[in-house]
């Protein structure tokens, strides 16, 4: 997109008529999935620094001119006939959505297979109501798994399912199973939702339970030494080294449980 195209697009978003919410539908957003029109409201440049960030791409037809903003399309089926607009969640009215998205160069003739919308998320206050083995304290024959336990996302949900399935099987066979070590991603996740939260890097106290994606802040801290022969250790390199140390430790500690 050129600067003019981008500005026209942002203007259209700002004037779009939003889906009207009933009073009871309070809408707190995760920063990870803010509707694009909400981002546009936060500032004219927000989208250009978010999902429309124009980095790492060269226009083969005009290699010397950098795009002012871009839209990433992700292939959605093996045929290549369906593509997903990455990061384009929205709560604009359906008619308006197609009209505005056709302003994007290349999408003038697109057919929209699925429009954006807003949906409910039901989840437990897990740290309070679940034990460390995912069973409901008030009725231990019930174990919970997936997004309803307060994790967020396909992978996280499946990971809690994996642990719950093994634990239920443990009970079936009369061999109760403990959660994986807290130094693993699975252990860190279950530990977070069941409230046995440990002192973690970059995490400052107050526990108000909100749905959680897996992230490095959930792992116990790890000490790493600066490599020899380096005067100043750049912070990007240090972060990378720290992540590598955490993931190496996790995969080692996972062996006993896997």
């Amino acid at each position, binding site marked *: 997109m050129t600067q003019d195209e981008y500005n026209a697009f942002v203007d259209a978003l700002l004037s779009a008529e939003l889906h009207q919410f009933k009073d009871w539908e309070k809408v707190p957003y995760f920063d990870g999935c803010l509707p694009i029109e909400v981002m546009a409201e936060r500032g004219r440049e927000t989208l250009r620094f978010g999902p429309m960030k124009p980095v790492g791409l060269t226009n083969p037809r005009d290699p010397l001119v950098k795009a002012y903003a871009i839209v990433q399309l*992700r292939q959605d089926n093996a045929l290549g006939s369906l593509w*997903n607009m990455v990061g384009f969640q929205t709560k604009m009215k359906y008619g308006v959505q197609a009209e505005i998205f056709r302003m994007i160069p290349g999408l003038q003739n697109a057919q*929209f297979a699925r429009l954006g919308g807003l949906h409910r*998320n039901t989840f437990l206050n897990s740290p309070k109501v679940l034990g460390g083995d995912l069973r409901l304290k008030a009725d231990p024959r019930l174990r919970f798994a997936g997004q*309803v336990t307060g994790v967020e996302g396909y992978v996280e949900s499946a990971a809690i399912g994996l642990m719950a399935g093994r634990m239920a099987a443990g009970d079936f066979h009369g061999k109760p199973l403990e959660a994986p070590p807290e130094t693993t991603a699975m252990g860190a996740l279950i530990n977070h939702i069941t409230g046995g939260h440990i002192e973690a890097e970059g995490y400052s106290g107050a526990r108000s339970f909100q749905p959680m994606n897996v992230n490095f802040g959930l792992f116990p801290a790890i000490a790493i030494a600066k490599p020899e022969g380096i005067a100043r250790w750049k912070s990007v390199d240090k972060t990378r080294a720290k992540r*590598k140390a955490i*993931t190496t430790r996790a995969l080692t500690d996972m062996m006993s449980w896997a």
Partner: protein
Amino acid sequence: MAPRMANSEPIHIIGGGLAGSEAAWQAARTGAKVIIHEMRPQRMTDAHLTEGLAELVCSNSFRSDDHEHNAVGLLHEEMRRCDSLIIAAADKHALPAGGALAVDRDAFSATVTRAIEQHPNIAVERSEVAGLPPLEWSNVIIATGPLTSPALAAGITDLTGEDALAFFDAIGSDYS
């Protein structure tokens, strides 16, 4: 933990989404008997469009697959090492997506559905559990997701005395 008596009653799993399908697979591979109760297609949610197990309701991405420098990539790798059905099906139907693990959603869901339906230790019942599970189910996993049916949600709320919170999540657009 102290050993307990074996409970050879079947494991009842409510919800055949990402979590319920993986849970069923993991339990069944140890020899446990499993019954999945999935309400689709009899009763659909606001987001699901098919009757397939493990339907991806929005993006087709499992996010970064970098297991050395990314936490979700690490989670993929740990799950692979635990013989995860979900990750194996995703790997099988991966699409080009840079460093991300993105999948063909229909082929992915079909593979999970087939693996579950053909497993000798798993039975799939297509009906809603419309309230708290019957008392004779002694080993239950509730994996009904962000769009848990209202009847079951109300049952859970009665039991916990805890308001199950509701909030909203935006979904992206797809075009072809």
